[in-house]
């Protein structure tokens, strides 16, 4: 072999090695984005998507495309903020806005997250209904288990376990095909928006936004990147992870709506209970549909019920200045643990109200989270555009346009909903 040939081979092999290195970094970063995106399909998510599909058929599919773009933009901003500043969102909010606004934003966050926790514990109750376990048994027991996991155990590995359970949701993708939907109609409704301005439709739209782009997600994702210590030069990998996991997660959401539309909507079934939601999986799982749905729901609910209280407690303590951290004991960080306990306790108390319409509560919680979203997003966006904080990484114009349209769209929808519900009262 000549000298030249050798050097060419060397160059090729080194470039391959470089790619391998890139791939390795990519996989090591693969995590925060994917876990967050999947946890977005929690109990509230599943019920909202199911109800959307069953009530409006394919006519809500189009919404997932703009929602996915918004999700990518919002998650990317959180990651960028975390990587550039090395600080959590609550920390930045406090240092930028001072005490009053911090308290206001934290209260908003608390309420939105409380709604999500309630939905998740309601999800556990619903899974219990499906598996034939009484709510009075499964809810308190799992709540205690969750608290033990959070306080005593390693919640990171617990998180991964429940993450694994969500894989059961892939059943929706298979069922989506087995249900033999009319693909031409699906394509058309996906790419050609058809909007109706009934209050029920607007309600579901806000729910869809609220369940996909959650306020807690922004705090959680940012703190994950801060904790990982991702370097600014690896930021492009974080970015591709976010794009990928957002698309994967919303594809699953897409199939949830599609499946429910193809099965329940055409059978004329409107979802009021978890049993009815589970029916959508019949084409794939037959009589085991209940079990598939229940396990997926249990995993998603538990994942949410672990992440959301911890994330809430972290954010609030960080913003207000209490001791935080799961590696501290109760005496050192009492407020931190009390926030977690109160969130779970309220969730349990509400989920145990006899004959509570669980699905309705879960959807309502997501609509509420959607209404709180603009407040949190505006404060994030103000920080994202501050040169003294973000330096060269301030938001680009495109990002601002997309993000602000999300904000105004959600505000607009909320106003529509409020106006129409006030009208309906009179």
């Amino acid at each position, binding site marked *: 072999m000549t000298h030249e040939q050798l050097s060419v081979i060397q160059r090729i092999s080194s470039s391959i090695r470089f790619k391998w290195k890139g791939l390795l970094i990519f996989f090591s970063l693969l995590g925060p984005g994917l876990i967050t995106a999947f946890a977005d399909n929690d109990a509230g998510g599943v019920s909202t998507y199911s109800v959307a599909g069953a009530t409006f058929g394919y006519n809500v599919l189009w919404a997932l495309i703009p929602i996915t773009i918004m999700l990518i933009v919002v998650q990317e901003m959180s990651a960028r903020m975390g990587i550039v500043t090395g600080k959590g969102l609550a920390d930045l909010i406090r240092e930028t806005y001072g*005490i009053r606004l911090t308290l206001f934003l934290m209260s908003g966050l608390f309420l939105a997250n409380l709604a999500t926790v309630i939905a998740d514990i309601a999800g556990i109750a619903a899974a219990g209904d499906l598996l034939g376990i009484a709510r009075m048994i499964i809810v308190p027991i799992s709540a205690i288990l969750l608290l033990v996991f959070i306080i005593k155990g390693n919640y990171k590995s617990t998180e991964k376990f429940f993450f694994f359970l969500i894989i059961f949701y892939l059943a929706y993708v298979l069922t989506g095909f087995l249900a033999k939907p009319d693909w031409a109609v699906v394509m058309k409704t996906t790419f050609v928006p058809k909007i109706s301005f009934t209050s029920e439709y607007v309600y579901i739209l806000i729910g869809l936004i609220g369940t996909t782009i959650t306020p807690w997600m922004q705090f959680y994702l940012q703190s994950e990147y*801060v904790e990982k210590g991702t370097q600014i030069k690896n930021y492009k990998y974080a970015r591709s992870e976010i794009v990928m996991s957002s698309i994967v997660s919303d594809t699953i959401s897409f199939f949830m709506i599609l499946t429910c539309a193809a099965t329940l909507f055409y059978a004329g079934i409107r979802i009021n209970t978890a049993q009815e939601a589970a029916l959508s999986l019949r084409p794939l799982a037959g009589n085991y549909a209940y079990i598939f749905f229940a396990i997926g729901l249990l995993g998603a609910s538990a994942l949410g019920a672990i992440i959301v209280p911890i994330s809430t407690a972290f954010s609030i303590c960080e913003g207000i*200045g209490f001791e935080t951290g799961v590696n501290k004991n109760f005496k050192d960080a009492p407020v931190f643990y009390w926030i977690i306990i109160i969130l779970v306790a309220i969730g349990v108390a509400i989920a145990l109200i006899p004959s509570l319409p669980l699905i309705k509560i879960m959807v309502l919680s997501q609509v509420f989270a959607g209404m709180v979203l603009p407040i949190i997003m505006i404060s994030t966006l103000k920080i994202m555009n501050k040169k003294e904080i973000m330096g060269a990484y301030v938001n680009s114009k495109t990002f601002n346009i997309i993000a602000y349209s999300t904000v105004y769209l959600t505000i607009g929808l909320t106003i529509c909903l409020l106006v129409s519900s006030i009208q309906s009262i009179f």
Partner: protein
Amino acid sequence: MITIIYLSQILNSKIFDSQGKEIGVLEDLIILDGEKHAEIVALACRKNNELFRIPINHVSIIGKKINLTVIKEKAFSFGNVQNDDLKLKGLVLDKQLIDVDGLKVVRVNDVALANVHNKFCVIGVDVGIRGFIRRLSMLKVLEKIIPAKASNNLLAWEFVAPLEPDPMHVHLKIPRNSLKELHPADLADLMEELSHEERAMIFRALDEETAADTLIEAEPSVQKSLVQSIKVKKIASVFEKMSPDEIADIITMMDKEKAEELFEILPPHIVKHVKEILRYSEDSAGAIMSTEFITIPWNYTAEQTINKMRELSPSAAHIYYIYVVKESNELMGVLSLRHLITADPNKRVCDFMNTEMLKVHTSTSKRDMAKLFSKYGLLALPVVDEKGILKGVVTADEVIETVMPQAWARTKVYHKRKRTTKNNGEIDKKIKEKNKQAQHDTRTAECNTEN
């Protein structure tokens, strides 16, 4: 009679000149940092979006209302607030600081000011819930609910350190001494709770010895973030205080370019050792062995050996076994301390050394070494290469650390924390003394004001 004023109580107060004319509002206070207190040198007065610097000696009353001793024109004649002025509100309020003694990162909810020796000073920061509520102007409402004593979280100014100095400003004080007094293991623990910039900031403030120990004690994730964000020069000087195997551990976490750069700066003999260790696979004896050990030529007498040991005064970890080698550094035998002391002083070491010793190869796995250690109850094992040349020594604790199951590794952290609390106990006492001193100071200040 006011003893302590809080910053939140005076911010945005109206400022009146000597003729009682309102000239602006209090935007901030300009401070001069000191050892124990930070002296307030001027007011930052906001008037029509401009910040004027009014020296404190022209202020007669400070409170809900601020009165000056000069007229408006004079007050505004000292110019604007400069970029390099230390602004109390901008730099401290709502920011996170290190509570150097409590080993915590705290959030400043309010700042306590008082007259000390006739000077208006910052005496501490309020990190408690009371400060938070006071800021919300709801103190009177909540005073009944939250008892005053339970939440009095005033940290003395001398015990707090800033996390991030703004490059635009002169550094706010960094009490390097207080940081240095902390145990490196505690510092490493503290670092886990900080952001990367904050870690780097503390790290830079440490002297090389402490920095090296802290780096060794830190969790891998913290180590990684530190070496990535600290300049090569500082790392090099810290590395010089570390052993080659420790350096090798950390260098594997760095980018290739940064590692290359380091190799260029570090002294050649260190680089040689480190590169040698890096050649071995991660799980092998070669990778974890220490290259500091004591060898004695085979023809030494017991007395010569003892003298040599005195001269070298080795650390505890390396004193138990003394290795006997040929000129080529080939391992011949081992002596224990007991052997050496009980032997006839004139006897040559090769005549009473143990030649049937256990040794491992540089490629021996950790698991196998762990078995040897536990089976024979040894403290250290010599590591040799293919030719039998002595390359290093592996101590039992290093092997245990690496093969220990996760559950055990946690207990180590537990012990670390226990030590923290113990230290805290001592420090608590110190704080109490200091607080007494501070109270005394304020009392003196009160007397001064009364005079």
